């Protein structure tokens, strides 16, 4: 199969499957890391010094080492050291290991963004709520939260767009995401070999998806632009 038009439907189908895996990893990471990041940020802001010290140390380790290294360690460590395939074999095992690595890594980055957002809301806002007799939870939900969200939207959108592309790192443990799918046609797959264009074509998926996210975050930012905080 040498003609582009013969190759295209086969490649398109394979890339779609790969991109589905990319999207799954992206979605699961957000689902896990967004709430976990909030918990970590509360830990690092804790007034109980030993807790905040431990949390800050862990954040330093995770942010200070490559995500690719974390992926390799999480995937291979249980098998090599304990002789136990903790994640199970096959694609689902690789997906679980990738998800855990991504969730931990991204939660640490998100936690710092949350911390900046929470600490960025002036203390006077809380005090204004307090002298009006509001409870702590009323102050958080009715006064602080929206101001915090407004502050974290730009750095969050940055981080989430980075996540779209970082999912390709899972290729290192052979997760069959879109880059893996594109690369397969170079080596030879489904009767196509030596084709470089599928790899270029994967870029189109990333561009389209990050374009959609950019528009989405732009819309949220615009929605919140009616006030200054």
């Amino acid at each position, binding site marked *: 199969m040498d003609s582009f038009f013969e190759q295209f439907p086969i490649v398109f189908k394979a890339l779609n499957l790969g991109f589905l895996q990319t999207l799954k990893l992206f979605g699961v990471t957000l689902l896990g890391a967004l709430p976990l990041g909030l918990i970590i940020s509360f830990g690092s802001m804790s007034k109980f010094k030993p807790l905040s010290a431990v949390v800050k140390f862990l954040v330093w380790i995770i942010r200070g080492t490559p995500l690719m290294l974390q992926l390799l360690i999480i995937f291979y460590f249980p098998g090599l050291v304990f002789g136990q395939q903790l994640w199970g074999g096959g694609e689902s095992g690789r997906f679980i290991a990738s998800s855990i690595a991504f969730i931990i890594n991204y939660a640490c980055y998100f936690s710092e963004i949350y911390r900046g957002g929470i600490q960025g809301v002036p203390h006077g806002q809380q*005090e*204004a709520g307090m*002298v009006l*007799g509001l409870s702590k939870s009323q102050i958080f939900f009715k006064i602080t939260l929206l101001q915090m969200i*407004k502050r974290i939207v730009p750095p969050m959108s940055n981080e989430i767009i980075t996540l779209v592309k970082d999912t390709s790192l899972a290729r290192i443990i052979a997760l069959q995401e879109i880059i893996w799918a594109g690369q397969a046609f170079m080596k030879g797959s489904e009767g196509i070999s030596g084709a470089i264009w599928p790899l270029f074509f994967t870029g189109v998926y990333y561009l389209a998806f990050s374009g959609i996210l950019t528009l989405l975050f732009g819309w949220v930012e615009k929605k919140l632009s009616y006030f*200054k*905080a």
Partner: protein
Amino acid sequence: MTVLEVKNICKSFGRNHVLRGIDFTLEKGEVLSIIGSSGSGKTTLLRCLNSLEFADEGQIIVNGETIFDASVNKHPSEAELRQKRLHFGLVFQNFNLFPQYSVLDNVTLAPRLLKKGTREDIEKYARGLIGSVGLQDKINSYPCELSGGQQQRVAIARALAMKPNILCFDEPTSALDPELTGEVLKVIRSLADKKMTMIIVTHEMTFAHDVSDKIIFMDGGVIAEHGTPEILEHPKSERLQAFLTSF
């Protein structure tokens, strides 16, 4: 009728003794101005009254009820605190309006959350307050669309919406451009005319002289001189004399 009795309030931050035994009383409908240089403890005193800080010693009695006694309970529960705070309103130097809410919502937020009446009643009362500070045409504006003077007037209406017994002002015009102080002082003056009980920390000497029934001059954490506004014309203590010549 005595609304407020403050007895021997002392407060330190570490080794810094900010308040060293403050005593005064306030009658219903009286206006008290607290003057003094920065660092004399004026703001800390207001913050103790509003339970934003807790005094190390002393008592605060409102309408005969002891709302704070350092010898009994230095750290009351959140529910108790919320009740106590409602005796006082506080207008901040930096306004601290809620940026995401309109003028009307800033004023109605606390009464609505604390269920101080039906939504209609609360809104009607809030509209009246916003009108009385001269901002009826800004009722749906957001704080970022207002000048500093307008924001401070909204902050006054917001504090009044909770119907405090005593309204406190912490240097209400210090963050304003000079041409905007007049509109805020006018509102405070009109409240004095309506016999609102108020405590005003201020650097506006002429205003303090005209609007107050009592003046307290603080220096180094104590009341160095107190009396009627007369004391601004004829200060007895050297410290007040020195302070007044700096204006």
